[in-house]
């Protein structure tokens, strides 16, 4: 067992999971009185962010070993334990989740129907996400994996757009099929390990030691892959995302694109790659090719869209294609670039979704034919839209560029052709992003309407993100520091 475990520690990670959960319950109870529901939700989000920030500050420099480790016996009959573990990557993801949650709550400020349950679901989603990033026992991981799905399903099906029910069902079942394959793989691995070592356990650390035949490893890896490939939308399995994002309510789509997509990739890094090293080695070239295909497919599709929210959905798929490419290169710089890109993509695309929601509130439409000439009517809103679009197309000096250049530098070392092809993809990103910007901001104002510029609440949401986008673009060192140790150990396939 990990020597780290027996040190009596303050259960920070359980706190991170429990605060949003209690917040959710309180919001449910205060269902009727809407404004203290909002206050409660915001307070919970801020509290979680405070804890996450504290952890980031005191574990900022990261290390080869676990930063935090909690281990409690849960179901002795099956050897299932309540194990939470945090390393550099998990720390970053937790910080991103906490940060995005605040803007999600602020964005959901103007929800009218059933405010209490909306915020409850939002906070339950956050607790599920925290769980996914921290869980280190396979059944616990699976439990949080599904717990994060249910609130998203209800957010889409009750507060969504026109086609919400059909899309919500499609979204849930698509991810469910993947996660059930993962469940079967978990049980199979659990039994093989149990048979070999006599002690039935589901903690990933102990499962690393199971000797698997090539066939077994192939099948188990495929099982795990089914769940993660669907969630980090690799090309053939991405159609659920575009529908879900366009139908989800504003705060829901912010969380879906900013965080839920990252759980798929995080699952790959934390669970699939370490457990099945040689199956991963064979799979990497396929992952690289699929990531590239995804990059181009999503870029082309984005170019053809008229609905700006759907365009942003495709742009997310294209960005995550680049992230997956970085992972497929299996190189230190490429991995750090991918993880940084995941964080910055969360912020930039999240901000863009916030802006799209604000534009939707003001103009009542999301189609580019009816939008246009926004700069004349709402200059601040348009300026921020321009800033985040430029960040999203990878302009140097802004957030995404730092991640992208690291991914490309790293990937060029291993697979030069992939890096060059990916670079062409970046031009496509410029193509559809500029089309988006031109459709929304520039050009003559089509409908005569006076649009109110940003209110205080909206500034509160967007200003921190704008500052972060510029800060991450120019000085990403503090966010890269925790990654060095964690990524080095994962690449070596060892146990952090």
């Amino acid at each position, binding site marked *: 067992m990990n020597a780290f475990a027996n040190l009596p520690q303050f259960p920070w990670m359980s706190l991170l999971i429990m605060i949003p959960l209690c917040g959710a319950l309180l919001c449910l109870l205060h269902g009727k009185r809407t404004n203290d529901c909002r206050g409660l939700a915001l307070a919970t989000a801020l509290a979680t962010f405070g804890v996450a920030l504290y952890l980031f500050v005191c574990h900022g420099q990261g290390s080869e070993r676990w930063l935090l480790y909690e281990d409690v016996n849960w179901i002795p009959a099956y050897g299932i334990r309540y194990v939470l573990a945090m390393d550099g990557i998990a720390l970053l993801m937790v910080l991103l989740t906490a940060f995005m949650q605040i803007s999600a709550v602020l964005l959901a400020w103007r929800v009218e129907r059933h405010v209490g349950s909306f915020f409850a679901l939002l906070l339950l989603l956050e607790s599920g996400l925290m769980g996914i990033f921290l869980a280190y026992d396979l059944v616990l991981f699976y439990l949080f994996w599904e717990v994060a799905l249910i609130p998203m399903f209800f957010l889409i099906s009750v507060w969504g757009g026109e086609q919400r029910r059909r899309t919500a069902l499609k979204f849930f079942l698509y991810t469910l099929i993947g996660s059930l394959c993962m469940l079967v793989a978990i049980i199979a691995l659990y039994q093989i390990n149990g048979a070999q070592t006599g002690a039935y356990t589901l903690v990933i650390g102990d499962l690393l030691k199971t000797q698997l035949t090539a066939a077994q490893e192939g099948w188990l890896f495929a099982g795990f892959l089914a769940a993660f490939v669907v969630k980090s939308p690799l090309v053939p399995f991405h159609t659920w995302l575009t529908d879900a994002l366009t139908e989800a309510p504003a705060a829901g789509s912010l969380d879906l694109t900013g965080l839920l997509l990252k759980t798929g990739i995080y699952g790959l890094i934390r669970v699939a790659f370490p457990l099945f090293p040689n199956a991963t080695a064979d799979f990497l070239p396929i992952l690289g090719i699929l990531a590239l295909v995804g990059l181009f497919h999503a870029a082309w599709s*984005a170019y053809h869209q008229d609905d700006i929210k759907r365009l942003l959905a495709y742009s997310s798929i294209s960005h995550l294609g680049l992230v997956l490419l970085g992972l497929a290169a299996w190189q230190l710089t490429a991995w750090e670039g991918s993880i940084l890109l995941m964080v910055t993509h969360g912020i930039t695309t999240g901000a863009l979704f916030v802006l799209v929601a604000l534009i939707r509130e003001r103009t009542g439409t999301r189609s580019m034919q009816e939008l246009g000439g926004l700069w004349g009517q709402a200059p601040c809103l348009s300026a921020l839209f321009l800033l985040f679009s430029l960040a999203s197309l990878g302009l*140097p000096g802004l957030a995404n560029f730092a991640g992208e250049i690291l991914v490309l530098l790293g990937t060029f070392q291993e697979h030069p052709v992939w890096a060059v092809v990916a670079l062409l993809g970046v031009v496509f990103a410029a193509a559809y992003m500029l089309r988006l910007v031109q459709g929304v901001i520039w050009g003559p104002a089509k409908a005569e309407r006076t649009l109110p510029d940003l209110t205080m609440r909206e500034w509160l949401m967007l200003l921190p993100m704008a500052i972060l986008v510029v800060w991450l673009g120019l000085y990403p060192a503090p966010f890269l520091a925790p990654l060095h140790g964690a990524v080095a150990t994962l690449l070596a396939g060892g146990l952090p």
Partner: protein
Amino acid sequence: MSESLLFLIPLLPLCCAVINMLFGMRLPRLFAEIMAVTGVAGAFLLTILFWGYAEGEGTRVVIFTWLNSGAVDVSFAMNFDRLAAPMTLMVTGVATLIHLYAVGYMHEENDYARFFGLLNLFVFAMLAIILADNLLVLFLGWEGVGLCSYGLIGFWYRKLENAKAGTKAFLVTRVGDVFLAIALLWLFAATGTLNISEINAQAASISPGVVIVLSLLLLLGACGKSAQLPLMTWLADAMAGPTPVSALIHAATMVTAGVYLLCRLFPLVSISTVGMTAITAIGALTALYAATCAMAQREIKRVLAYSTMSQVGYMFMAVGAGTVTGAMFHLLTHAFFKAVLFMAAGCVIHLAGDENDIYKMGGMARRGPVELFWVFLAGAVCLAGLPLTGGFFSKDGILLALFTHPDPTYRVFWLIGVLTALLTAFYTFRLVYLVFAGEWRGTGHPHAIPLQMRWPLWPLALLGLIGGMLNLPALVGGDEMLHHWYGDLAGRAVTASHSTEWMLIGFAVAIVALGWFAAHWRYRNYRPPVENRVSRFLLNGWQSDALVDCLLVRPFTAMARFCSSGCDRSLFDGTLEGLAKMATRYSALLVQLATGRATTYLSAFAWGFLVLLGWFLLKLVNGGGH
């Protein structure tokens, strides 16, 4: 003044840009204008102040680390050396004058904060390219310049064509940036570092094949920014922006960034002869192409835009011929006289009531202030390359370098250079005659030209005329100041016997005279424009837009439609819907079984019993009750 203050040069324009952008609209207009001009003028003064630091090896200042992950360790660093100093001086100087001119030009415009903010940001980005110590900071400046030109071209965003022109500029330059990025990645893989001086030092150690590909990639990257042949379609449309923008960006600074990049990485590029000939070829072809197009243009600014493209082609030829001094010399003089021409063109447009078409002008010498004609003529004379003007010496230096190049094929490029010089003289004087000679053909009523638009023209005009002093050839007793200033960075020293030099000078003078007389004969008394296939072909740049459209844009949109509706809708979604329908069909089938009648349920029971009997007999037959 300690060297650590060097970073103030790029920082000053950046701060002014940020202040203008954030608080520009709230501050009074005068404050924003002063802020913009002081930002750039301050940088100009600082460059003069710190001129000493540029001698010798130059000084390297590291500000803070940008990216450190594994082998990558890149920081924001400046290298103020002998190549960068004159370039910074020129950029900040011309920019100061253009800012003053812009104050006058844009005084009716109410969105001034955004304009001056972007203009200052542009100067910062250009300084980032010039002073960059590693390729990543250079790339940051590279894309920053692209962004500012996108913002400024599309400044009058209310008309959709301006916004489209801005997007086109950004996209085409972005394609060029991709090639630069590939070169950047490859250099990092080959040399393990992104620091420019280290790369130049290790240049010899890289395998020749790789060097050839790298130089070609750098060439394509430079072509993107300097609007050379494959990626030149955006420059003509970029004239949709306000004139000070065209003057600053599309005359003096951005288009020359490509040349500066090649000069910066000259030790690496000069190793591969294939690369050098490619650079010269591209330069020559673009020069010729642009000159022919300039002849047929109707708008004053598009003529100047194509002439810029042609002059930058000359600079590429100079780099290809191996003389960095020749290239930089022509770059500096060209910046002066082209800026004058653009600013004067701005005044002419104001006088003609915002009319761009030169066939609807004429007789402007009498309509506006008389010194406008003399200033325009000074610029035109330098552009055409009349003897003793700055343009003449710099262009002649390049032609000499081409003529005396050891590789005989450079004679072909020399010939193209001479032919382009002829065409340049022709279209320059065509412009002068159509705009200033004859009587007024236009309809618009003239705007008054404020003072700030008039007096910044004079210093630049003078600099253009006496620009030759910078690098006066030994033939006429000059001390080749620029060549000595560059020292080892200067590349191949051009030596030729006096007789060939005199022969070339005589030949050049004859060419210019020929061009002038042709223009004089053709346009002395006004003739309406001749409309035929050739002129239409030349008018829209050898139909390059149509070519790009059908080669790239149309297949791209077709592929986009295929991917989004073809793949996503019918293929992936289609399969899902198919599965769902199949499931519902099976359930409908099954639900019909429960008919509601008890007898059906009993018969189902009987079927179950039958299955049991069948299974039982099967068991008996092969099992035999073991």
